[in-house]
């Protein structure tokens, strides 16, 4: 069966996290949404339909056509699956006949018979065909906004750990370290090292430490938490509900937060109820608020407007390649775009900083421009022996151009 993972128009609600990636590459739990699709549709061939600007990068990364109708045609039918669907571990039963699965107003999936896929179709026309199919209401977790990823993280870690079926100490764990709670709820993967004076507290849920990761002394990791491959946890207080992608360096206090990968929060400072992109560097003592002093619900800037999340605990959402200086203080519900440079001023920053903007001396500025930011990105990545693909560079340039208007507007407003 062919399965087409698609992005609907709400993928843009996940900016800045989805500027440089499709929605299904975001993390929740132990894996990305894509990993969950692969797990669920393990016997099927996966195809993808995304925003046009991301197509070249995905073609390069996935090594297969993207946004192409011809490969979707054939004798078998096609299942279209919404890329924002946070699939659980209970699997998906391929429908016996054409139907669409919906969650409220959102199409989760649609099963189209093969003869319905024509060579002049595109995603829009395929979804139009799905819209005419019999509906089945399906309870589902949908990632509508960045905070949904954080909201579902803890329970997803627990669910995926159970289904993973891996536990125990396959790597190294110093005898002076402690598993506080059930030892059944720990998996230290082969090649991972837990140094002396580390506490893995499983009272709240499992602690998973992936291959190649080093957990240094005086670290406490509270479950449910997932530390991805090749990370370094440097004396941190990793509280419940954390997931770190590969290659992160984390210290200080982190709670209910997701780091996409290859980002550093090496030093002291609090990160809570946040989602941090890739190649972000949070300077020492960078701290975000995740709870308002009056315990009211938090508003977050998205899609050009300030929206009430309905949630009391919301932290910060920081785009790829952004850097914060020492002592940066982020307000509750802050959104910072990609490739920003934020220099703390001793008080709260504005709640929204457009991509590529700099924040200096209390004002939004244009920075040194695209090339300078790309050079910084190349330098940062090469330190970890990762290289910026030409397609990534083109995508970054695209985002630079498309965010120019809001960035210049923010600069003008900031000057008063």
């Amino acid at each position, binding site marked *: 069966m062919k399965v087409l993972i698609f992005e609907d128009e709400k993928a843009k609600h996940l900016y800045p996290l989805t500027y440089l990636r499709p929605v299904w590459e975001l993390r929740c739990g132990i894996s990305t949404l894509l990993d969950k699709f692969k797990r669920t549709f393990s016997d099927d061939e996966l195809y993808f339909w995304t925003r046009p600007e991301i197509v070249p990068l995905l073609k390069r990364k996935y090594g297969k056509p993207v946004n192409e109708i011809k490969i979707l045609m054939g004798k078998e039918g096609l299942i279209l699956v919404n890329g924002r669907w946070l699939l659980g571990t209970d699997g998906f039963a391929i429908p016996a006949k054409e139907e669409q699965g919906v969650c409220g107003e959102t199409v989760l999936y649609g099963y189209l018979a093969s003869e319905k896929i024509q060579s002049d179709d595109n995603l829009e026309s395929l979804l139009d065909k799905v819209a005419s199919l019999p509906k089945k209401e399906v309870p589902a977790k949908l990632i509508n906004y960045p905070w949904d990823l954080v909201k579902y993280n803890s329970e997803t870690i627990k669910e995926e750990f159970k289904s993973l079926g891996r536990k125990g100490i396959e790597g190294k764990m110093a005898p002076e370290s402690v598993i506080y709670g059930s030892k059944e709820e720990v998996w230290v993967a082969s090649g991972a090292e837990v140094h002396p004076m580390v506490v893995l507290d499983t009272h709240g849920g499992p602690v998973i430490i992936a291959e190649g990761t080093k957990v240094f002394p005086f670290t406490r990791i509270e479950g449910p938490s997932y530390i991805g491959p090749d990370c370094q946890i440097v004396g941190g207080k990793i509280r419940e509900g954390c997931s770190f992608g590969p290659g992160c360096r984390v210290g200080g206090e982190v709670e209910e937060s997701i780091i996409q990968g290859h980002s550093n929060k090496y030093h002291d400072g609090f990160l809570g109820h946040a989602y941090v992109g890739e190649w972000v560097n949070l300077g020492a003592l960078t701290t975000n608020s995740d709870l308002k002093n009056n315990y009211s619900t938090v508003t977050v800037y998205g899609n050009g407007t300030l929206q009430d999340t309905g949630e009391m605990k919301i932290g910060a959402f920081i785009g790829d390649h952004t850097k914060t200086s020492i002592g940066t203080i982020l307000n509750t519900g802050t959104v910072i775009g990609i490739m920003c440079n934020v*220099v703390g001023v001793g008080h709260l920053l504005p709640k929204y900083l457009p991509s590529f903007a700099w924040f200096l001396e209390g004002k939004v*500025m244009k920075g*040194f421009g695209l090339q300078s930011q790309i050079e910084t990105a190349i330098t940062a990545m090469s330190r970890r022996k990762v290289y910026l693909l030409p397609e990534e560079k083109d995508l970054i340039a695209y985002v630079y151009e498309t965010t120019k208007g809001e960035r210049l507007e923010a600069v003008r407003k900031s000057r008063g």
Partner: protein
Amino acid sequence: MDNVTERVKAVVVRQLKVDPAKVTEESDFVKNLGAESIQSLELIAAFEEEFDIEMDEEASLQVKTVGNAVKFISQVLKEQKS
């Protein structure tokens, strides 16, 4: 001294807090007037505000002296007028 030059020098003195007597057309913002990288950005922002212009980020990286700034800004003002 034309108006643009006078205004550019005033901005430089204000932003970099330097002695006006040290600000000449040949003065390099970094080498002679001690501007740090962050101050270079603030200087560009100050020029934009003073003259109500937009300076392209990458082009403005080439503005290294007071004279360069005067020339660049004069050109931008001319383009905006036409």
